[in-house]
């Protein structure tokens, strides 16, 4: 039985030995149920042990294996080879520095996550002994979708604003701030607004919507950003209008 194969082009780069990245072509078996990550693992195990990439769960929840696949930001573990005919081209995620091969430097993303204070800042303090905060299913549903982000960074690779203005806090981090702002238990919105409503925050977004298109978990960061903009605008009017009315 002859096995069908397909070309896999991988952008390689080793800062110790290469002055710039280059393409390397591997021929890999073409199985309908294989994902691109399976092809990379095939290369690593059987052809070239020097190839490097991040992966772990192989079930689209750990967020490690985001990469550009034929020009689009995708999770390698959820992109099926059957969707490609002749050539699969993989590169590191766009808009991030390359650390080695398909591995990017994540520092900027991780520091932005921390900056938006992505944790519950309770409206009212309640000791653990008094049990859980009450939260109805409807209240949960207000923010649930925005809590699904796996930090895969595909949205940053898709975002044209982030490409132009690297200090833009970006889709995932702002969405996470929005998730806590919408939580009925939370009272920390004012603190987060200092970052989210700043010049580096929501107002950099021009609503291209590429982030939501790229999101593998249907979190809809573009929707979150637009909601955050509206809320921030209302804040502005409240602040300025009430001070004017009080004059």
């Amino acid at each position: 039985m002859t096995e069908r194969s397909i070309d896999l082009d991988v952008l390689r780069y080793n800062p110790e030995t290469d002055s710039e990245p280059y393409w390397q072509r591997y021929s890999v078996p073409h199985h309908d149920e294989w994902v691109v990550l399976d092809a990379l693992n095939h290369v690593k195990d059987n052809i070239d042990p020097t190839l490097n990439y991040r992966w772990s769960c192989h079930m689209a929840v750990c967020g490690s294996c985001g990469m550009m696949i034929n020009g689009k930001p995708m999770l390698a573990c959820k992109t099926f080879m059957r969707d490609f005919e002749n050539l699969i081209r993989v590169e590191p995620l766009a808009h991030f520095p390359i650390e080695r091969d398909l591995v990017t430097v994540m520092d900027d993303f991780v520091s932005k996550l921390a900056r938006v204070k992505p944790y519950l800042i309770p409206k009212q303090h309640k000791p653990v002994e008094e049990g859980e905060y009450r939260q109805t299913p409807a209240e949960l549903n207000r923010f649930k979708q925005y809590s699904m982000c796996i930090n895969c960074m595909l949205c940053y690779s898709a975002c044209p604003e982030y490409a132009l203005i690297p200090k833009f806090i970006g889709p995932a981090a702002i969405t996470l701030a929005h998730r806590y702002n919408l939580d009925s238990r939370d009272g920390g919105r004012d603190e987060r607004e200092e970052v989210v409503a700043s010049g580096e925050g929501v107002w950099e977004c021009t609503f291209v919507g590429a982030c939501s298109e790229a999101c593998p978990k249907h979190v809809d960061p573009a929707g979150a950003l637009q909601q955050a903009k509206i809320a921030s605008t209302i804040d502005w009017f409240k602040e300025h209008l009430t001070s004017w009315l009080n004059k």
Partner: protein
Amino acid sequence: MDGHYVSNKLMLSAVAGKFSFGTNLKQRRGFATNMETIQTDIAIIGAGGAGLRAAIAVAEADPSLKIALVSKVYPMRSHTCAAEGGAAGAIKAEDSLEHHFNDTVGGGDWLSDQDAVEYFVKEAPRELVQLEHWGCPWNREPDGSVAVRPFGGMDIKRTWFAADKSGFHILHTLYQTSLQYPSIKFYDEFYATDLLVDDGHCQGLTAIEMRSGRMHHFRARAVIIAGGGAGRMFPFNTNGSIKTGDGMALAYRAGVPLKDMEFVQYHPTGLPNTGILLTEGCRGEGGILVNANGRRYLQDYGLGPETPVGKLVLKTMELGPRDRLSQAFFHEQQKGNTVKTPWGDCVYLDMRHLGEKLIDERLPFVRELATSYLGVDPVKEMVPVRPVVHYMMGGIHTDIRAATPIGGLFAAGECACVSINGANRLGSNSLTEILVFGKRAALSAIEHLQSATHTVNDAALTAQAQAAQDRIRTLFLRPVGNESISGMRREMMDTMELNAGIYRTGEGLADASTKLAELRRRYAEGVSLHDKTNVYNTDLLQALELGSMLDCAEALVASALARKESRGAHQRLDFTGRDDVNYLKHSLAYYHPSEPPRLDYSAVSITKSQPGVRNYSGNKK
């Protein structure tokens, strides 16, 4: 050329500058020799659920303590994220600590330490409420209280859940919460290679920074290992690629015994082509298992009588414990009642009667996974499944305080064995365990800092760190040989699957023992690197991970061979009964660098539940 390529290229200069590789590349090739020393109070190895919970507990208890959180992956990549079903904690009016205790001890086939289980069930509700206060999006009842779902082997509904992404939400809640504490310093993508032990006390560790390839020497007054499980020893498993037993191997090589390693949990419902887990919640919500003939075969293995489809009866049939369900599959396979698929024999998980609405609300991830990876939509079709390696009941020997026999060294989570899980863990106890014992390890470490009086011998610790670095350098210097890392890993996995699976024999285990000894020898003499550069070298990483797995596998097989009885998840075809006279005791495997481990045993703590019959028949209720 695409815009993103240009953009990547532009940033390269920044990368090169950042790591200063410009001066003499050739000289820098081969393992970097300069070592950085980091002083901290408590070092934590692993930043999954247990490691993060421990870090937060230290930060809350004493903000002046410096914490180094050392993890081979970014925290949110840790495998806690893949846990689906939920976390057990008795909170509802109809439930009690007594019930949770009895379910856990019986589920563990009386190998659980009952003092530890008592502590665990008592702390469980508090930890789950704490997580709720940190923002975890638990599912709710209409009145706003936390909702619970049924799980296998539990006689009352007590599993808190966030749809079928409970582990994901727990991990992200913990990670995000941890970001507010300035005393937690993250060392992400640092691979720990050795513990530094002097004067009977663990005083630090060495770790390779993946980004630079540089060895770092962490000086700590206490170390907590929270490195997760080792399911990747087996070829067909639910575990992420990172679960290679590194934390277990670190402690084992430092002299701490690995306890009860022979107890490996097979989860009954994995997707046959990938091993992807379909949560026990599928059955908790009412899904049923049928064989090729459409029969609910569990009734033929002491789990009957058959319960009405769509009407849940707890702790029987599909809501029996995982060991029993996986064993029933084996027998169905022997009888020829399984379904042939291109990926091996299967049974069907039927959820069609649950309806689209409930599946989308409570099991959306299961639907997404089955549909994407197998092309089967559980709303419309039965899903072929088979048992898959999921969890290690055994691990680093600790006491009820999460302390190992080495002073200043603690362990928590899947890498540890307290043991609350005994011979078989109940589903939804492990997510609670990482919280309860992650925190416990932190508190014990703080107590240790307050009481420890040992002296710090700088020269001895530096020499150990140097030796650790030399060991890695040896790998770099060794010429490329005939042994491939992936080849040896495959041989290990094959022997584990063949000989250390759901049912075992003395003969098979002896074969595995011989094979593993051979692999360990070949590894020690012949493992070599194709990649001899420093930056993000996963050839090196995989070599070290293979070393961890081989050590864990040998401990597992030796313990299994010596346990001549069948208990919980350890089933011997040549010793089919449970033997409380000779084997109501914990196995302890002690490391030896070139020979199989030395085995010893320790007593099981029994406080109020004498070993009895595990009864999952619906009849006796």
